């Protein structure tokens, strides 16, 4: 019975994704990155940054160009990790690293003086999400969540992936997922809007969660265009997430977002209201931004915030405790690049959060990126690792007085 329900739901989801409404001007759908582009921007040269098919050689990665606050240092921790994205630790010190377009999942073993990078899965469907619990690695692709049990003892002959949950839309646009265990032990992930701007089906533009055994799927937050990074505050255990706002509305609007979702069921505005205070020119009619949850921070136009991570270590100065690091992959829909930084958020009760730059320097002299910071994770000693999906590398950031 459950299987039949799952089949029907899958069919509905697949059908539904073909029915989402687009702005009236479209005839045949343009490629996803061009959808929603107004006529007066039809000749814009802006297009997504092409993804290099190979990682940079270590000698071509200018780590010393990464600018950090006083006392902090960046070093090259691992290279040759093609399209390195999200990271999660195994119980035995293995670092599992996801990728997006290249389709790999990696296991990195720290040998002390060097890192050994193993590819434990390849050919996957944009496997951006990795999470680890009880000896099991969970992987989120566009269309399914799978697991590898006992993987840490079998890195050189990985076990088969078995399906955890696959009643998911198959849309490629914004279909890749961030995956993380919440404080409640459930797996949280995004289902992004299958477009730049549209009225998405009810099944899209949300953050959802499911039990690690695949039961109990439910939507958690609505009106989220696409969030590929979130974390829970170490003390309050409340969810904070980064969202990518729409393109082709201008160089400086709308801003991307950093949001707070302390309870289930909040609606964050997409597609009707952007950045908490701008109604969408097409879909905002009849709405008011007051209907929706406003962003905690407008993080900047087109900055592409990905990884969100609350710092809990002791290596960094005391003021860094419970700060959130936001890795911003950087813009394509803006003439002058924005993002390409790691920002930090300091929440303050009774006051607006502080929002400051932590790491920058990823643009070369010509304003082109040599690297794109995407996700961070913390090491046991309180240093942090920063993944760069453009150079295919992971940097370690340490602090010394």
């Amino acid at each position, binding site marked *: 019975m459950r299987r039949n329900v799952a089949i029907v739901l899958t069919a509905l989801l697949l059908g539904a994704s073909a029915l989402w409404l687009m702005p009236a001007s479209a*005839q*045949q*759908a*343009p*490629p*996803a990155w*061009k959808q929603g582009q107004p006529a007066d921007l039809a000749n814009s*040269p*802006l*297009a997504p*940054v*092409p*993804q*290099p*098919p*190979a*990682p*940079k*050689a270590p000698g*071509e990665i200018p780590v010393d160009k990464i600018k950090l606050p006083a006392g902090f240092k960046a070093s090259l921790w691992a290279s*040759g990790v*093609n399209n390195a994205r999200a990271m999660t630790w195994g119980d035995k010190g293995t670092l599992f690293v996801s990728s997006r*377009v*290249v*389709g*790999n999942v990696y296991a990195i073993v720290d040998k002390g003086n060097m890192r050994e990078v193993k590819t434990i899965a*390849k*050919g996957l469907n*944009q496997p951006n999400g990795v999470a680890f619990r009880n000896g099991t690695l969970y992987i989120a692709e*566009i269309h399914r969540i799978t697991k590898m049990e006992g993987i840490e003892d079998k890195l050189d002959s990985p076990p088969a992936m078995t399906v955890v949950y696959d009643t998911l839309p198959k*849309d*490629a*646009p914004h*279909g890749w997922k961030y995956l993380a265990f919440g404080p409640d032990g459930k797996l949280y992930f995004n289902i992004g809007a299958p477009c730049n701007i549209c009225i998405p089906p009810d099944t899209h533009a949300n953050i959802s969660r499911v039990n690690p055994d695949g039961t109990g799927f439910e939507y958690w937050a609505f009106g989220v265009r696409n969030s590929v990074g979130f974390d829970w505050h170490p003390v309050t255990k409340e969810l904070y997430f980064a969202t990518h706002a729409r393109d082709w509305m201008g160089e400086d609007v709308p801003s991307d977002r950093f949001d707070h979702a302390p309870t289930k069921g909040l609606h964050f505005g997409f597609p009707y209201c952007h950045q908490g205070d701008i109604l969408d020119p097409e879909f905002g009619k009849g709405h008011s931004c007051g209907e929706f949850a406003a962003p905690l921070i407008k993080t900047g136009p087109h900055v592409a915030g990905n990884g969100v991570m609350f710092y809990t270590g002791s290596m960094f100065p005391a003021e860094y405790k419970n700060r959130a690091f936001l890795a911003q992959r950087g813009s*394509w829909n803006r003439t002058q690049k924005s993002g390409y930084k790691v920002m930090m958020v300091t929440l303050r009760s009774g006051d607006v959060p502080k929002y400051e730059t932590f790491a920058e320097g990823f643009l070369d002299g010509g304003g*082109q*990126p040599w690297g794109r910071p995407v996700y961070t994770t913390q090491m046991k000693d309180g240093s942090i690792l920063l993944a760069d999906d453009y*150079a*295919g590398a992971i940097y370690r950031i340490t602090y010394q007085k």
Partner: protein
Amino acid sequence: MLLGALLATGSAAVASAADPEAGRRKAAPCAACHGPDGNATIPGTPSLAGQPAYFTHWQLLKYRDGRRQDAQMAPFAVNLTDEDMGDLAAFYAAQAPRQRASVVDTARVTAGEPLAKQHHCTSCHTPALTGQNQVPLLAGQDLAYLQKLLRGFRDGTASDLDGTMTMAARPLTPEDVENLAHYLASLTPTPPPR
């Protein structure tokens, strides 16, 4: 000789210093099917000359990883290193493409021309359909190969890097596929801008 940064706005420099001369040597086994300079003559086999480097590199990667399945290509790709793929891609990108000797139907060519704009092919493949970065040169490609790939994308059986081609091809009717393929095959290829 380095493959320099492509000049199109927003394009990126090649990730590593690929060596087209090493690529020429490594391409020796490829010549039997793809021609010594990447201009193939066997119907159904694509030309590689003038293909943007990222495109060729990504295809080799997909063949090596099994994401793109072809019994003839698999043995050639399985042992390629990242460096090999970069060198091969750089070599082919530097070769001048020649139009294939496909026999095109002029009525189909005429019908296909507006489709290239209507279906936004020119948005990614450029107005001259010469490709850029990870997007292939289509102008003057082999007719049978174009038909096979377009049908595959429309049917969801062809390997897609990121879903873009599957979405683009979905609204095509079988007549559209034929007309587009004839139109693309009829064009004179020019190499992508450097």
